[in-house]
């Protein structure tokens, strides 16, 4: 019979938080936001590099829409989702999520049509262009287009 032990380990975090000194919660959040701004330019370049990596990967004749290649696309899309979202690039983050939905399902199902990934890459690149980045209506239209692509792919998978 399994013996269940219940106990309360020391919470060092709780003790640390209440030490004298430090900052107010509002100041901590404000400083963290400033710290983020300090790496914004670097992170924007990294986002562009990740989009380019997906494009290069899916342009290769050796690309396999199942297995490790698709896993790599999924991981990059997940990073775009996370890192664009932190900097309030909502539509780019959602495009990353859409590509995750697409490629996450592909790992379990049949090989994925690589054209659906390329559409996502094209959308991400357009969202990074200044004229699109500054136009909320265009950004929304790009995202809606992606939703339609993902819905079509999902319908095909369901039929198969």
């Amino acid at each position, binding site marked *: 019979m399994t013996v269940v*032990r219940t106990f*309360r380990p020391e919470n060092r975090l709780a003790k640390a938080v209440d030490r004298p000194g430090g900052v107010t919660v509002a100041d901590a959040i404000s400083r963290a936001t400033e710290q983020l701004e300090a790496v914004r330019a670097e992170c924007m370049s990294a986002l562009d590099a990740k989009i380019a990596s997906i494009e290069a990967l899916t342009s290769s004749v050796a690309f396999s829409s199942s297995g490790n290649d698709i896993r790599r696309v999924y991981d990059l899309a997940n990073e775009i989702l996370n890192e664009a979202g932190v900097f309030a690039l909502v539509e780019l983050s959602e495009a990353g999520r859409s590509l995750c939905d697409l490629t996450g399902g592909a790992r379990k199902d049949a090989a994925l049509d690589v054209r659906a990934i390329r559409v996502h890459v094209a959308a991400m690149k357009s969202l990074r262009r200044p004229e699109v980045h500054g136009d909320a209506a265009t950004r929304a239209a790009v995202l809606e287009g992606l939703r339609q692509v993902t819905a079509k792919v999902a319908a095909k998978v369901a039929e198969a």
Partner: protein
Amino acid sequence: MATGVDPKRWINLERVSVMLLEQSDHGRKITSQILRGFGIRDIHACRSMDEARSLTNSVQLDLIIADPGALSGQGMDFLRWLRRSEKNVNRFVPIILVSGHSTNAAVMLSRDAGANFFVAKPFTPKVLLERIMFIARDKRPYVDAGKYVGPDRRWKGDGPPDGTPGRRGGDMNSEIDAVSENSSNLNPALHK
């Protein structure tokens, strides 16, 4: 969402030691920057399971923030390993799992692996600080039941920790829950 933390409250995270486990270089950088803004100086950034295991064997930590998804699910393995490592000084350290593209099943897996909290990415500094403060106030006991080691998963009736408003209309504070027959059966620690 209500903040849960008084913006005027003073906090001191200068002596807190944090381990970050995340594969993405920029993901680690972003979270590190946020933590530095909070005043945390002792940040150990790891990009692999091996680095993380080695660190937990040698450094006393106060908090772990790990992204299990970015390591092809290995982050969850790390969590299970740590909770079962009887001689590891960090066995019961609070762990926040952070993940971008995740499913409800992944959230439940993180709970069953012994995580204290699951946070959906992308997160803002405000959300991350709220979760850190939530864990600092969390009075849940830990359970060692052989197959499961970690914070007590049975939150029925407990509501969110004292002083926090909860994140849903059904969340109640513990004083109310103690006498209410309509207490929430929801675990706020697992709400994304």
